[in-house]
């Protein structure tokens, strides 16, 4: 399986703290993406980082990518109770074209306690 792996599987923090989630993958990638899923709902795209980028920001989100280690991290700063959700990393494998499927990891379950 070329599935990515998130770490940790579950994370519980206090409101206002930072949350860091990690993702490792196995093959060369075109880009890596992070998605969020609220309980029982579909996934929502958060941020995309290309293989030639090392860091990217979007609001309270910061994503880093280390292609030499085949790993990425997602940092959520100043967390809020509304950030409680599961977070998934996803990578594209196979043909380097726009219709290549993504491979999703198993996710990190984040709980932010008010």
């Amino acid at each position, binding site marked *: 399986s070329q599935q990515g792996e998130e770490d940790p599987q579950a994370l519980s923090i206090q409101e206002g703290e930072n949350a860091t989630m990690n993702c490792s993958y196995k093959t060369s990638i075109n*880009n890596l993406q992070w998605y969020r899923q609220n309980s029982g709902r579909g996934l929502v795209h958060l941020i995309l980082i290309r293989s030639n980028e090392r860091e990217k920001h979007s609001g309270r989100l910061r994503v880093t990518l280390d292609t030499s280690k085949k790993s990425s991290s997602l940092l959520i700063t100043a967390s809020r109770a509304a950030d409680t959700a599961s977070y998934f990393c996803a990578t594209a494998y196979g043909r380097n074209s726009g219709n290549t499927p993504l491979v999703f990891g198993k996710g990190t379950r984040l709980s932010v306690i008010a």
Partner: protein
Amino acid sequence: DVKVTQSSRYLVKRTGEKVFLECVQDMDHENMFWYRQDPGLGLRLIYFSYDVKMKEKGDIPEGYSVSREKKERFSLILESASTNQTSMYLCASSAVRSSYEQYFGPGTRLTVT
């Protein structure tokens, strides 16, 4: 905004029934995908389609088939539902030009009894 809709949020079917899950997207996306999501296993790709009438198997196609007769609609078919197909089913779409970013529907929670 991109909108991906799925025909049902919750569905209960009996073993052996034929089940149709419908997915419609309104952004003229070329690619459409069906996943199932189970606790501890994450999202697993069942089938995907990158054009009308085209389909490709994902990681777990056994027991499923798909149909894409129109660009906006992608159907997942369980020919003879079994209890091990009880799961959350997620549909997604993406445009070829958008670097693989996928848009997801709300999901269908299927229970087979």
